[in-house]
């Protein structure tokens, strides 16, 4: 369930890290060369871990997150292979979706907890 937020965030993170590399920035026709790209990418990966940990079992969550990282990186590779120019917009969209999803899940969980008390 938390993968709904964790996967897009991981994809966005991996995507930004990819775009911070010269070769892939050229592939993606991505002109912005900013020093914050890579750190923000890492931050998004950390956020995806936090989103995973929102689930009930933190041990399961860590295992799932490591797998999600692999899946997210694979999706970035596929994007660069088939539609490189879509990587920047997709990564941005995924970051927004992921954050929105995480906030929504957090709200839902807390309202359900309030209801059950």
């Amino acid at each position: 369930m938390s993968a709904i937020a964790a996967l897009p965030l991981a994809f966005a993170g991996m995507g930004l890290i990819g775009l911070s590399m010269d070769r892939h920035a050229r592939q993606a026709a991505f002109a912005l060369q900013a020093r914050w790209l890579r750190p923000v990418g890492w931050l998004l990966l950390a956020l995806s871990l936090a989103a995973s940990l929102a689930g009930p079992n933190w041990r399961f969550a860590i295992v799932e997150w490591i797998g999600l990282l692999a899946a997210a990186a694979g999706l970035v590779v596929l994007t660069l292979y088939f539609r490189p120019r879509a990587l920047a917009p997709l990564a941005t969209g995924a970051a927004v979706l992921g954050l929105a999803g995480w906030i929504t899940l957090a709200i839902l969980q807390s309202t359900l907890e309030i209801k059950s008390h």
Partner: protein
Amino acid sequence: MSRGFRQSMSGLHTWSGLLLGWLLFAIVLSGTATVFRSEISGWMRPEVTASAPPDGAIVAAIGWLSSAHPKAAGWYLAAPDERLSTTQAVFDDTTAPNGYRDIALDPVSGSPDAIRGTLGGEFLYRFHFELQIPYPWGRLLASAAAVLMLIALISGIIIHARIFKDFFTLRPGKGKRSWLDAHNVLGVLALPFHLMITATGIVTLLAMTMPWAAVANYGDDLAKAFAEQSPGLVSRDAAGTPGTLAPIAPMLAEAERRFAGRIGRVSIANPGDANSVVTVANHDGDQLAYAASTVSFAGTTGRVIGAYTEARPAQQTYAVLYGLHMGRFAPWVSRWLYCLCGLALAGTIATGLVLWLQARQGADGFGHRLVARLNVGAVAGQPIAMLAFFWGNRLLPFGLAERAAAEVSVFFLAWGAAILVGFVRPVRRAWIELFWIAAAGAGLLPFVSFALTGRGLWAAVLGGDRLFWGFDLMVFAFALSFATIARRLAAHRTPAPRRRRNTMPA
């Protein structure tokens, strides 16, 4: 890194990968299928539509076993759960080909009679670590293969020059370079998984391959070693006098109460004896560790004679590593990730086998030709064998004697045929033809299944039967993938090999 070191690690990587690469591909692919062994088992027993709560199913199973196999030395049962509706029963049987039976029992009646004889997903699971080779050689070979794969992974990490720079790099249309990119991407992106699954794979067979720690600390009193390692497993010798089992349902209820969770596996040692022992383990889906909690009962009275939840750090570590490999803890997202990463590992091995040939383009020695031909049957033959196994499950007559063994024969016959095609046809044509056969075998399977069982994709979707529509969709997805591969292979024209010196390190 000195050039000599890189070259020696490159050699080690090549040889550790090549020596048992074909076997490793089979192990990894069947292992990946095993992630969904419950679902595969459910698909391969389409006549089972009933379901029952786990307690009731175990009671029914024991009822049937008491009348059909009262003299067995032990009954080993796995209770049904949300992924599998049948009860799995393993017990010794002198009439069986391997000396034991591994069958599914109907959850309501406890009897296997209305279900077709099949091993289901259990075959792929056992093949994965036993390789259809008699005990203990199959397991030893699988363990050796796992050690070689660990060596290949570590040496591969050492020689990979630009792990971070080339993390996302996949360049099409560059021949050998593209294959190397694919090999690297598949290997690096899921590297934590690859390392984990290989090391934990070795852990699962450690009791057999490295029993020396027990010898070191206990000498020849291995019974005491076992007892200290697993204090919860009460083991009593048979008394020799007959005894009847007390009602099981209260024992299961007591176990559930102690676990504060679901029951998983139930084993009854010496069921017809006065000293029978019923051991209940909690469900593996509830925590990472495998067999975390057990309760043992005296079989004839139902009295609790042992209860244990492992809390010691080394034992817990072992159980968690074991559980990580088995993956039974995994909720559905993690389960699919295990499957994807397993496919990535299989792809790493397959691209590695092809790469060995690519690096020696123009070479025409016996070794080169042998590898080229073996690759075909080893790689393309595996999915074909699995599909043949599923076709056999639908086509073989219900009443066939030793039907489960017959299905297994179909698997190996298909694999053998694929290997033969690799030796008889020109190599490139063989790849294309086998992938088209795999695509057809996968694409037609759901239709054949619907025609013979009546459980089709449409009805499954309408009825919310996730197992059946999930299976059909997966099979269609594989059919599409195989067809795509076949078409790309056919369209791709390999440039004539140029006579130039081999530049890749051996």
